[in-house]
């Protein structure tokens, strides 16, 4: 270079080119602690990353930070991915962050517990936020990865249990940096449609890291805020995520989510068919029984008594074929009354009636049978006899027999 001096801009541009063309600096990963964090109205984030000895300014543009899965704050340790470039107006180099994750996630479980406690305290998981799950959803929205393991299970379970149910898949990646943003986008889309009765948000099993998108505060709020009832089915039985706690109903697995969402129509159909059959069977039986009972009554000897029935009852009997029910009810009632009257008359002649006037009946006991004794000839000394009185019976032993007309023995 021949010129003896440079303009400020020229130096700056020169340095900018150096930085830009450096292989290390144009794709770099920096670990540090956030300080001076500022989320500008424009949506861009300005902050510095520092460690014990140094500090570097950083910017993360709106286009990159909108799907961050955490809220950056001062003092937080992060891992930032991006490039170093120079901001010409100020002549300052800075880190342009394209993606960022929380550092020290070694203790993910601790983080999960902290978030859980925070949201619990806030009441986000309270029952008052839980919506009832519709009994028979006609159309179910599915938020999961279209290429993942969960989707097959869910769809096949739903189809097997109730083929009438429609499914609309809104695919979202279920792990990785884009995941939370996509899950939220898909969920929101389905929630905003007016033909979705129920949403299932799901993914197959995996490590805590794999499931991490489902332990996200923003997603949790989205789930709670949705108008459509949501069932979550994330991972295996033992996996519990924040999304599960936020959902209206938590299923232990993707298939279980489908089972909770859709009733098994095979068994419901069986129950229905059975009831259908029973209804006809029962009414037929009822009519058959009534007819039998009527036949029985008509065959009874009482009806052979010509004075009692034939004339007007015959007429009524003919009407029965037209008005079976009414006739029969009336019939039953009248006949019942008549039978009651007859049995009252019979009662007057009954031996029991005689007993009530102070008479008794003597029976001879023969093993477990007994027969009425009408003459002392039928008895001998020492035998057991039973005496029937109006209100009970006596058993006694014959001690003495005396014939009234001629006195044979003692």
């Amino acid at each position, binding site marked *: 270079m021949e010129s003896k001096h440079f303009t400020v801009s020229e130096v700056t541009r020169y340095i900018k080119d150096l930085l830009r063309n450096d292989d290390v600096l144009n794709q770099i990963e920096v670990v540090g602690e956030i300080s001076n964090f500022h989320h500008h109205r424009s949506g861009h984030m300005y902050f510095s990353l520092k460690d014990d000895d140094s500090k570097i300014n950083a910017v993360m543009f709106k286009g990159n930070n909108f799907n961050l899965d955490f809220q950056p704050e001062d003092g937080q340790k992060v891992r930032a991915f991006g490039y170093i470039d120079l901001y010409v107006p100020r002549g300052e180099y800075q880190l342009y962050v394209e993606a960022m994750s929380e550092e020290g996630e070694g203790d993910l479980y601790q983080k999960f517990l902290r978030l859980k406690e925070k949201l619990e305290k806030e009441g986000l998981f309270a029952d008052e936020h839980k919506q009832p799950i519709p*009994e*028979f959803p*006609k*159309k179910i929205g599915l938020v999961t*990865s*279209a*290429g*993942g*393991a969960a*989707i*097959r299970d869910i*769809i*096949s379970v739903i*189809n097997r249990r109730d*083929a*009438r*149910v*429609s*499914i*609309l*898949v*809104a*695919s979202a*990646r*279920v*792990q*990785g940096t884009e*995941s939370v943003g996509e899950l939220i*986008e*898909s969920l929101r*889309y*389905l929630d905003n449609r007016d033909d979705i009765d129920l949403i299932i948000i799901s*993914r*197959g099993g*995996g490590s805590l890291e*794999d499931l991490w998108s489902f332990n996200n505060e923003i997603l949790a709020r989205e789930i709670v805020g949705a108008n459509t009832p949501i069932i979550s089915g994330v991972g295996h039985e033992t996996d519990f995520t924040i999304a599960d706690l936020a959902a209206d109903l938590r299923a232990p697995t993707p298939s279980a989510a489908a089972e909770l969402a859709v*009733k098994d*129509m095979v068994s*419901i*159909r069986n*129950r*229905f068919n059975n*009831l*259908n059959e*029973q*209804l006809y069977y*029962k*009414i037929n039986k*009822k*009519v058959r029984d*009534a007819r039998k009972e009527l036949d029985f009554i008509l065959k009874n000897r009482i009806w052979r008594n010509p004075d009692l029935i034939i004339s007007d009852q015959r007429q009524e009997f003919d009407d029965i074929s037209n008005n*079976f*029910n*009414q006739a*029969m*009810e009336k019939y039953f009632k009248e006949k019942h009354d008549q039978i009651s009257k007859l049995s009252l008359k019979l009662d007057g002649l009954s031996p029991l009636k005689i007993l009530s006037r102070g008479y008794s009946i003597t029976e001879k006991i023969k093993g477990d049978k007994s027969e009425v004794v009408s003459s002392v000839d039928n008895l001998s000394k020492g035998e057991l006899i039973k005496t029937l009185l109006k209100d009970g019976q006596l058993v006694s032993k014959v001690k003495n027999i005396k014939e009234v007309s001629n006195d044979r023995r003692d």
Partner: protein
Amino acid sequence: MTEEINKEELSFEEAIDKLDVIVRELDSDLLSLDEAMERFTEGLELIKFCQKELDQAEGKLEQIVKEDGEFNKVIPFDLTGGDNNNQEDD
């Protein structure tokens, strides 16, 4: 007992439960034949209602996909396709 089946407000499950109750009632000796016929007619109504629900057409399996960065295109979802086994993360 008057007609109390309000089909608008009745859920499928409720209809089946009601049918169940009617079948049980028909089984008991307490009903007169008149009452039994009334229950039976009610039962027929419920059967008609349930049958209609059961006869509904098969549901659709679809996916919403993005066009120009927005979810706006509904296509049939192919369960047999995309069988790259562990594509959990696309």
